């Protein structure tokens, strides 16, 4: 129920409220997250953003907001924002800059790019961006269509381990992507009378905490909405999340064992004959092979691997299989394991053999609204085929040849920087990404590599550790409320309307257009962000039919039609036949695409590369299983760290967690600074006792830096001191190139003392060339498992 005020303005896009102008639109990072929620921006007489409210009529978030969008004006109007392009005047890392104009900055970029083109080749330029940003089609386009390089990827995200392993598994098994059905595809949300949607009987929350993370365009509040409508939960998580506390079953698995658990659940469902015979017979391929594969994965065996009681595995499997509809909402830990793809295949098999495919309240086949598929490959066709073929990562055919990947392989880009093989990378363009503070595993190794480049540009909203360490040029970019833009991630299509301006800061789009026109004008037949949006709506969004004006000033958001059971009505395949978009036309439990490229066609699991059982000698030295990256309400990855903000008020310092027993045994107390250390390196965070953890598990935060402290090296905003990625390797990927062990390392923990804190990691890395620097002479790789000595 909405109140009178909002009802009166229901059909308005802008209106006056006293001294404020109110604008109805959507917002998309940064600041923000993976989602694009409906907002009402309140701007004051001077055009400044004063306040943000949730738009009660936007079906996506229904008027609600997370704390981060509520505090948005603090970040938009923050004194630390950079308002002019900056040219480095000191050495890299000194944080000394001179203000220049955008045109002067473009002159420098153009000159450097042409130098690289002349001395090397276009592909010697690599572009990167951060996850979820509304720069996901803009930066790839810049890379391919302005620089002429195929080497776009996410900021040194090892193994492309954010959704890409899951999406490669889904694309090959189903020919489509599936997501948990919370009615998000319908404008009339939760409406069981006027839509076919049904409340899931059971929701499996597998390795994520959606109320905090809102990842992959999935708003966490939807899960609570379904709970209020009667959904029961099963939660799979090493820690008792709030959702776990509300679950019928909480499976406290050992980090990194998701694939084994899925195989165990498949075993129970198949052997107890709880699967959906009709669906399996009619719509799947390879069930007998799957059954054979799962034979040995008994609950007893899986119990030993996962550290979960066997009876809980059996009970949870039964509960999931016997519910209809049931849905699985899964998360990043599946990707962030060397066994990412096989684990994702196992979980995909779970919703398949239980017949929960594309049914109301199950796991639905979702496509981007109005077929707008501009994303990581947008503009790739502007490259000649021989340049496309040079995309780094060609040694991984699933990515390079089967067409499942839309980025270069990040680990291989790193190696190319280090070794010049297969060819040198000499320039890096980093837009809205902060790898050495955030997702770049083995951050010290990245630090060393990127320092060696000829030219580095950072485009971001604030000065970051990454910019100070590497940038020759820093270009400030606009925040969501300062841009006219549009975006699709599944549904709906969303418009973002500009309501304010910061200095003369430009949008991501305008920066890219300005540069594109200098380098490859033929690929930039638009003069500004609005014309570019119009171009995409017209040419790449065929079924929408409107232009940008229509989108932001009339529709604001637009939902496409949605049909369930597409495989029954000829909407599953491009050829209009019934079935799925796979070689066999069925969901491939036996994955013929994987087989074709020489990989195991069935789900499987093996121990992580560092684990209590695979490397017992390491476990003796580092007796905890370390998982990283759990989300907080206060932050989106490394964002929202600025001082004097509500985020930092509520979450001032980095925290890691261990059980009470484990802490007591080591004589550690809640609130103490401790070192976390393993064979790769160390960092420090503050201990918080988490009584729900297994005594053998440690859980640490990621993304930390301290913008209130010195930016210049050796401090670098303190980013290396608390960076958990000092302990995580690069280039430890699955056979496909996908997957990386961010969430399953080993570590030890000890108290910080004056004595052992004399040389901080920031100093050690930036001044002493420290951590992970041992090179294997035979192949030029940094040795995995080298010993940390200090």
């Amino acid at each position, binding site marked *: 129920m909405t109140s009178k005020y909002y009802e009166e303005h229901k059909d308005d896009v802008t209106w006056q409220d006293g001294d404020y102008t109110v604008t109805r639109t959507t917002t998309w990072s940064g600041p923000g997250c993976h989602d694009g929620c409906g907002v009402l921006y309140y701007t004051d007489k001077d055009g400044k953003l004063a306040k943000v409210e949730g738009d009660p009529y936007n079906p996506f978030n229904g008027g609600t907001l997370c704390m981060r969008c509520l505090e948005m004006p603090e970040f938009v109007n923050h004194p630390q924002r950079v308002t002019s392009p900056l040219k480095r005047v000191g050495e890299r890392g000194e944080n000394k800059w001179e203000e220049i104009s955008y045109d002067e900055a473009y002159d420098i970029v153009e000159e450097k790019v042409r130098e690289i083109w002349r001395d090397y080749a276009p592909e010697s330029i690599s572009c990167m961006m951060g996850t979820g940003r509304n720069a996901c089609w803009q930066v790839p386009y810049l890379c391919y269509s302005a620089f002429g390089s195929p080497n776009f990827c996410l900021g040194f995200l090892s193994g492309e381990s954010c959704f890409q392993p899951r999406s490669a598994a889904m694309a090959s098994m189903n020919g489509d992507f599936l997501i948990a059905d919370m009615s998000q595809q319908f404008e009339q949300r939760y409406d069981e009378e006027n839509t076919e949607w049904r409340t899931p009987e059971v929701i499996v929350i597998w390795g994520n905490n959606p109320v905090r993370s809102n990842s992959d365009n999935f708003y966490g509040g939807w899960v*609570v909405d379904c709970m209020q409508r009667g959904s029961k939960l099963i939660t799979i998580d090493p820690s008792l999340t709030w959702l776990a*506390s*509300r679950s019928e079953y909480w499976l406290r698995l050992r980090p990194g064992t998701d694939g084994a658990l899925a195989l165990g659940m498949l075993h129970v469902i198949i052997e107890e004959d709880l699967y959906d015979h009709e669906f399996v017979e009619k719509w799947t391929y390879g069930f007998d092979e799957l059954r054979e594969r799962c034979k040995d994965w008994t609950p007893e065996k899986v119990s030993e691997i996962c550290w979960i009681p066997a009876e809980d595995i059996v009970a949870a499997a039964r509960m999931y299989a016997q519910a209809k509809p049931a849905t699985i909402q899964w998360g990043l830990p599946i990707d962030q394991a060397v066994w990412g793809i096989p684990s994702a295949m196992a979980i995909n098999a779970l919703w398949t053999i239980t017949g929960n495919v594309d049914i109301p309240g199950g796991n639905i086949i979702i496509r981007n609204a109005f077929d707008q598929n501009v994303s990581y490959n947008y503009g790739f066709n502007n490259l000649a085929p021989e340049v496309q073929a040079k995309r780094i990562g060609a040694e991984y055919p699933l990515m390079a040849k089967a067409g499942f990947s839309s980025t270069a392989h990040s680990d291989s880009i790193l190696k190319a920087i280090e070794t010049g093989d297969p060819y040198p990378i000499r320039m890096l363009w980093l837009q809205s990404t902060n790898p050495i503070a955030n997702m770049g595993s083995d951050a010290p190794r990245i630090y060393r590599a990127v320092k060696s480049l000829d030219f580095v540009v950072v485009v971001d909203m604030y000065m970051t550790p990454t910019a100070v360490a590497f940038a020759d040029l820093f270009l400030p970019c606009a925040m969501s409320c300062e841009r006219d833009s549009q975006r699709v991630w599944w549904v709906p299509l969303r418009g973002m309307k500009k309501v304010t301006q910061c200095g003369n800061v430009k949008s991501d789009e305008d920066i890219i257009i300005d540069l594109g026109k200098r380098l490859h004008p033929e690929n930039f037949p638009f003069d500004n962000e609005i014309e570019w949006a119009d171009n995409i709506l017209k040419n790449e969004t065929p079924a929408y039919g409107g232009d940008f004006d229509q989108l932001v000033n009339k529709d604001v958001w637009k939902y496409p039609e949605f049909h369930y059971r597409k495989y029954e009505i000829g909407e599953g395949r491009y050829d209009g036949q019934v079935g799925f978009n796979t070689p066999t036309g069925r969901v491939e439990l036996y994955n013929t695409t994987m087989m074709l490229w020489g990989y195991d066609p069935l789900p499987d699991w093996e121990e992580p590369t560092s684990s209590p059982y695979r490397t017992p000698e390491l476990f003796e030295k580092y007796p905890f299983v370390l998982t990283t990256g759990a989300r907080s309400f206060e932050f989106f990855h490394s964002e929202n760290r600025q001082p004097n903000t509500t985020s930092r008020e509520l979450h001032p310092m980095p925290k890691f967690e261990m059980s009470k027993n484990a802490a007591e045994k080591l004589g550690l107390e809640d609130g103490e600074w401790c070192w976390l250390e393993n064979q790769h390196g160390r960092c420090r965070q503050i201990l918080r006792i988490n009584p729900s953890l297994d005594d053998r598990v440690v859980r640490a935060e990621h993304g930390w830096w301290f913008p209130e402290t010195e930016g210049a090296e050796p401090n670098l905003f303190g980013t290396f001191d608390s960076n958990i990625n000092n302990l995580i390797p690069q280039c430890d990927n699955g056979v496909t190139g996908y997957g990386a062990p961010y969430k399953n390392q080993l570590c030890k923990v000890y108290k910080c003392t004056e004595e052992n804190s004399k040389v901080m990691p920031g100093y050690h890395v930036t001044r002493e060339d420290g951590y992970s620097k041992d090179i294997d002479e035979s192949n030029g790789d940094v040795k995995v498992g080298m010993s940390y000595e200090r």
Partner: protein
Amino acid sequence: MSANALMIDYEFCTGCHACEVACKKHLEVGEGQYGIHVLQDGPRELPDGRWEYNFLPMPTSLCDMCAGRIAEGKDAACVHHCPAHCMHYGPAEEMAALAAEKTKSAVFVPVA
């Protein structure tokens, strides 16, 4: 007519701080001050092996029940933004009746 009350159906409160921050913005209070403050209990294992883990947003003496917003025909800022839809605003008796249908709930009457 009775006073207005806030009803928190805290079976569903995730501890997300949205109410807290929405209220800070409404009251324009700075660091360390709250019109509603999210309290946490747990996670704690109960003698029977189940787990206790609850959040409860508690209005403080600064809460003005959004009188100004209500007068403009708006709603309470905290209730408006709660992603879990677990906050309700209305006359105290109505809120008490609503609370009686819930398993874990609390009714607050911050302003007489």
